[in-house]
């Protein structure tokens, strides 16, 4: 199942070769579109030549449909795809600044690379400028540091914003793009009739345009129709990837490891208690959240778990191992990274700490301190929690 991680799976050399080849495809696409020519790019801002808008939005919509169509069929796991983090205001201000640079300089960073590669002197100079500008930012980042890091949301999708399903959002984006293409064509036609527009070098019939639009729209509608796999269906698709962790019991942690983790200030621990409300009220671990299985299907709730900081650990507590395992499966396929199950739930909790009172105070079972571990032999449990980080969120821009 996609995505694969070439560098992790095949080593650095092959990984780098793949990055090079993807870059070559990228460069060639930009070049054949005419993006090595600043006049053509700048004409976008005078409504005379809408190539930039047409090519960019076609690229976005095609890739978007391919991603969510494959995800709906279970060929691609969207939880593993890096989504650019949202820093709303620094993104908007940075975007406005870039718009200014774009219309003054005639390129954006990617297109200036292609322009420089085809020996356009203005492209070479612009590229040198971007290197200087990026360094200036690095020198002065402390002046804008707070603003740069403000208004942050980790994985914030348009579908979350609109409250739509992903499929409906894909259809919405496709329809919006098709409307923009229609407007762009009308706009160019206006300038051509006025005699100040740029000529077209390609011939294509209206019928072909309609067929293209029809293909995109039907694929988007099919994606919406099938829907994105729910956690239960996703587990069926992905069980081979994660089953071994359950079989080897590498994700079942000993109560003493729980105590160690709970007391570790370097870990941000989230404890999910899946027992009934009555049992929870009778006794629960300090800081635990009582949730129902239905919450695991709530994407908003799950995304807070999937986007914990690097030192975040999620531990599932239930007296029924089957329930805990099920919850583990459903959370795992939704991209929760450091996810473990408390072995035996709370059934043996009280027995384990029986008679282990501390010298001067009785032991609070809901929050055993680190000192209590001294009363157990060193090999009382095997440490299983290993913090894994996803270093993907930044993507290639960092």
């Amino acid at each position, binding site marked *: 199942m996609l995505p694969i991680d070439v560098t992790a799976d095949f080593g650095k050399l092959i990984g780098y070769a793949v990055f090079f080849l993807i870059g070559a495809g990228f460069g*060639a696409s930009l070049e*054949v*579109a005419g993006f090595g020519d600043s006049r053509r790019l700048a004409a976008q801002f005078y409504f005379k030549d809408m190539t930039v808008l047409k*090519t960019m939005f076609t*690229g976005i919509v095609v890739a978007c449909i391919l991603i969510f169509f494959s995800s709906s069929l279970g060929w691609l796991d969207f939880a593993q795809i890096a989504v650019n983090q949202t820093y709303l205001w620094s993104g908007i201000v*940075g975007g406005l600044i870039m718009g200014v640079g774009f219309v003054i300089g005639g390129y954006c960073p990617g297109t200036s690379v292609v322009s420089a590669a085809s020996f356009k002197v203005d492209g070479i100079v*612009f590229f*040198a400028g971007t290197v200087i500008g990026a360094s200036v930012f690095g020198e002065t980042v402390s002046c804008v540091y707070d603003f740069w890091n403000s208004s942050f949301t980790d994985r*914030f999708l348009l579908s979350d914003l609109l409250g739509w399903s992903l499929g409906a959002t894909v259809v919405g984006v496709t329809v919006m793009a098709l409307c923009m293409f229609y407007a762009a064509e009308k706009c160019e036609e206006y300038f051509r009739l006025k005699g100040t527009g740029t000529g077209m070098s390609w011939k294509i019939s209206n019928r072909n345009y309609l067929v293209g639009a029809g293909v995109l729209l039907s694929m988007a509608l099919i994606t919406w129709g099938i829907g994105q796999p729910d956690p239960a269906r996703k587990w069926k698709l992905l069980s081979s990837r994660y089953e071994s962790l359950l079989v080897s019991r590498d994700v079942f942690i000993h109560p003493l490891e729980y105590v160690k983790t709970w007391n570790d200030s370097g870990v941000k621990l989230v404890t999910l208690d899946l027992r009934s409300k009555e049992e929870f009220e009778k006794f629960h671990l300090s800081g635990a959240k009582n949730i129902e299985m239905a919450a695991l299907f709530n994407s908003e709730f799950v995304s807070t778990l999937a986007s914990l900081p690097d030192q975040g650990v999620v531990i599932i507590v239930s007296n029924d191992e089957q329930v805990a395992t099920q919850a583990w499966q459903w959370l795992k396929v939704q991209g929760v990274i450091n996810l473990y199950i408390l072995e035996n739930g709370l059934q043996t909790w009280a027995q384990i700490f029986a008679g282990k009172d501390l010298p001067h105070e009785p032991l609070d079972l809901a929050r055993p301190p680190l000192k209590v571990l001294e009363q157990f032999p060193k090999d009382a449990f095997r440490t299983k929690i290993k913090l894994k980080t996803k270093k993907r969120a930044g993507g290639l821009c960092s």
Partner: protein
Amino acid sequence: MGESTVQPRNFVNPYLAGTLLGFVLFSAFALTHGGLGASGAISRIGVATMDLFFPSHVDRVGYFAAMGGGAKSAIDHSSVMMLLGTFAGGMLSARLNRRLRFEIFKGPRITNGQRLVFALLGGVIMGYGARLARGCTSGQALSGGAVLSVGSWAFMFSVFGGGYLLAYFVRKLWNE
């Protein structure tokens, strides 16, 4: 057959180029988890250049040290490989389409010198903005747009917005 008598080939239909771009972008996600990018590599090239002359400065400024501090090489990174690929792909395509020649693209009313000054200025502004926005048109707008990131869509419309807002005032740079 002299190079100068050969006419460059025409550009392809924008929708066709966009479809090609979409497939490249999808393959980037499918093979590497992430999308396309250029500005990260540009920043790394800046740090590597600085490291040649002022290595201690790179080590001292946290933002640079994260990329090229100590013995770390800032350009030993997948994003730089992608940038080299972009360069090679652009050059190969330009060669095949007979567009590989030294020239300066500019509007009809300005001199070559003026054009280069504005290209440099635009580049500096663009490079700064791309770091503030954590990505450029490819890394944020294209890649983030395809995976429906709210921040990327807001970014994309502000790039167009900034360009359109200023376009009228700099029309002499590009128009008759």
